[in-house]
């Protein structure tokens, strides 16, 4: 007797959420992130038909081919995923967009588009698979490489890193988090919350490059990150469609109500951390960085700001498929214009 297939709330099997076989190196952090994405979308019961996957160029940017095989994807040019994603969402505001970038793709050539995407609060899940180097071009330092971090060749990085989380907060992103490809639980919870959030989700996931940046002296090696992970809270996510009550001691947890009715439960690890306080969040990031640590978890959230698509006030249907009558004004309109020009 066949056991009934395991399905999610929209009746799809886990298999549906998988993608092609990865061509990344065995053990690459990026693969772990793909796995969490597969789980999160499966468990949240997202319709793959609604999802678009966008990326730039890099090992990280290849990874959308390795999850959600039934969704459309666009492997664009280096550093320009944000604009392509913006366009896709303008065409169809019902799409759920997930953009995958690398720290080189975002921090170097793509930092301009990153800045403007954050500023617009475009509703997209923007993931940086952050390994502190350019994996695909063989390991040069990227702009997130830490001061003093070493290349395999022994060369030392003498520039300060760009903290993409601090930048995103400064620029107006409404959901900013950092995680580690090795922290399954935290990453999964954050990804689910990301799916529930309406606005820009900026999720910097430290994701060791096992081939070029996993050695002693690197501050983005698996071992180093594991040792220097400094979680702000214990994150759990309760989707709107699950009726779970979690009890915490009063004051020991913060509950964030998401746009779709889901809840993000943050069990405090530090008395005073409040992820809705922008300047507090920045301070905390700076402090961790000064200690050589990575503050992870939900760093900042502003659940209620209007996202870019809302500001544009477009019709409810996707612009992409409006019929001719809706997009071509009538004869009178043209005549009126002509009259005005006589």
């Amino acid at each position: 007797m066949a056991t009934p297939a395991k399905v999610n709330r929209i009746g799809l099997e886990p298999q549906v959420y998988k993608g092609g076989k990865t061509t990344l190196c065995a053990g690459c952090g990026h693969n772990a992130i793909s796995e969490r994405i597969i789980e999160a979308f499966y468990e949240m019961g997202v319709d793959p038909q609604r999802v678009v996957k966008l990326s730039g160029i890099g090992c990280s940017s290849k990874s959308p081919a390795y999850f959600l095989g039934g969704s459309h994807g666009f492997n664009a040019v280096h550093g320009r995923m944000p604009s392509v994603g913006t366009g896709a969402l303008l065409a169809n505001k019902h799409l759920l967009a997930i953009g995958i970038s690398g720290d080189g793709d975002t921090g170097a050539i793509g930092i301009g588009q990153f800045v403007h995407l954050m500023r617009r609060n475009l509703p997209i899940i923007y993931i940086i698979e952050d390994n502190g180097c350019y994996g695909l071009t063989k390991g040069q330092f990227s702009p997130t490489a830490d001061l003093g971090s070493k290349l395999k060749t022994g060369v030392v990085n003498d520039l300060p890193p760009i903290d993409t989380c601090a930048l995103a907060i400064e620029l107006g992103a409404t959901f900013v988090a950092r995680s580690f490809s090795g922290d399954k639980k935290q990453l999964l919870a954050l990804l689910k919350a990301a799916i529930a959030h309406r606005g820009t989700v900026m999720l910097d996931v430290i994701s060791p490059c096992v081939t070029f940046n996993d050695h002693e002296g690197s501050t983005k090696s698996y071992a180093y990150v594991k040792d220097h992970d400094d979680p702000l809270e214990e994150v759990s996510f309760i989707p709107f469609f699950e009726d779970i009550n979690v009890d915490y001691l009063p004051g020991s947890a913060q509950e964030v109500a998401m746009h779709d009715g889901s809840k993000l439960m943050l069990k405090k690890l530090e008395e005073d951390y409040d992820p809705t306080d922008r300047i507090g969040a920045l301070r905390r990031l700076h402090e961790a960085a000064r200690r050589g640590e990575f503050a992870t978890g939900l760093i900042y959230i502003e659940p209620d700001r209007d996202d870019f698509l809302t500001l544009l006030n477009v019709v409810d249907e996707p612009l992409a498929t409006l019929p001719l009558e809706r997009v071509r004004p009538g004869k009178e309109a043209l005549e009126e214009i002509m009259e005005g020009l006589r």
Partner: protein
Amino acid sequence: MSPSELAVQEARSTPNQPRVVNDFSIQVATVNGSGSQTANLVLLRSLLLMGIPVSGKNMFPSNIAGLPTWYTIRASKRGYIGRKKEVDFLVAMNPETAKEDVLTLDAGCAVVYDEPLKLNALRRDLTCYAVPFDKLVAPVCPDAKLRRLVRNMIYDGVLARLLGIEMPLMEQALQKQLGRKAKAVALNLAALEAGWDYAEKHLAKQDPYFIERMNETAGKILIDGNAAAAIGCMMAGVTVVAWYPITPSSSLCESLIGYMKKYRVDKTTGKATFAIVQAEDEIASLGMVIGASWAGARSMTATSGPGMSLMSEFAGLAYYAETPAVIFNVQRVGPSTGLPTRTAQGDVIKAALLSHGDTRHILLIPASVDECYTMAMDAFDLAERFQTPVFVLMDLDLGMNTWTSDPFAYPTRPIDRGKRLTAEKLKALGEWGRYKDVDGDGIPYRTIPGDGLPAYFTRGSGHNAKGQYSERPDDYVDNVDRLARKFETARAHVPAPIVERAAKAKIGIIAYGTSHYAAGESRDQLREEAGVETSYYRLRAYPFTADLPAFIDAHERVYVVEQNRDAQMLELMKMELAPEQVAKLRSVLHYSGLPIDARSISDDLLSQEGFEVAKPTTGRISAGSAGGE
């Protein structure tokens, strides 16, 4: 100026010239930011209302206020609307350039000037009319702060009187120009009248130039090419626009915003059927367009040369990934920190080949505001049909200057959204592959996110016909060969040229875009002045259509007229025409930043034909400020 001074000056003029009616050019020299644009457009429109074919061209500097600007209005009973090289009637308002403006005129020209400039002292072979603008403006405009703006309307009044433009039409033009701003209308009307009155009382007509009513402009509209293109985009059903400001293309998107807000917002819900985003730069603009087109929207951007250069990488991606994109390039003189307010047809070969690797793009080249309108619609249809970027190459002259036109016709054709896979088609095909050439025309079927049909992963060239990742040599070759085939298919679908064969002509002329007007006028000059008959081929698109070789074959020599230094269109032709055809091709180039004029073409062509050509006329305008920093 006292009446006695006037008398002196009359003596200097050449009163025995024959009357020149509706066939001369007026140049107004001012500084920008001085409100002269209103006065100039009123003058222009008044001539239109007089029924006279007319055109206006603005030569303005690359700054915002305070530098020399020249506006040239040409009245032409024969309907010539290209730039006229010679200035016949100068209005000299700008102290900084007045001297040079006057010194470069041909003998016999007329000059209205601001009295304190004392330009009459410079030459004796001109007709000079001094007007004390400051004295006249004070009484009509008590608010001293506004005088600078109102002052220019006075020369309209003076010209109306001197040239014979009917005041009621002038007033009508003014009303139209200023719309419902009652106070401004009143002030300007007063200035207009002050000018008229002054001329009536103090200026005795001495020059040969006259305006008389005709009936050539009934129903015509006045519009710039950018606004015309904007209307076309709206009518094409554009839904996503991403742009970054740049002269001379900004007003295309700005006009579009205006029209869309008026006609494309749901009256009841207040919601828009479009999204227009001012992007952070041109790379982002094209990225957004590509993303939107990929997701199924009709999407466009507009830019100029520097922006197009920045779009190079993305343009190549779109060619290979086969996403539609409509890109207006309103051309200006290159490069960046070049002459952004001067016109050129300098991005032709660059647009055709934009990006690295083997790429080739469709170009549409409107010559008139009406074509800006229709080709905007063509561009979207072609971009979606061929799933590729389509460049609409305009130029500053077409985009920013005001042109007369018949009113635009409401489109009768439905829009062509190209080969979109449907559930039925999928059934019929059995198996779908994103890049399969099922119809033999090189054009594959596509799906879009959210349509419920099979998804695919979009990339540049690294895929097989099914859209799967591939680095196989044969997959690559098959794919790029299909792309070449697709481009060949496009030949039969782009706008065909407009051809005029003259019966016994041995000479052909090929022109495109705004070179058309000067080329047309030059053909008349060649016939009338030198007895040279020419056939004419107005090119409207790239890839070239199949009839180009035949046109060349039918003539002994063919001149390709264009506004760039390197003969870029000719270069594109040479790349694909047979050597026998290439052997017949000659080039006529004009690349000073000013719109091309008929006289320059005729002189150049005739001298290439072995005629003795007179030294270039002195009518070289001094447009452009120099030095001194």
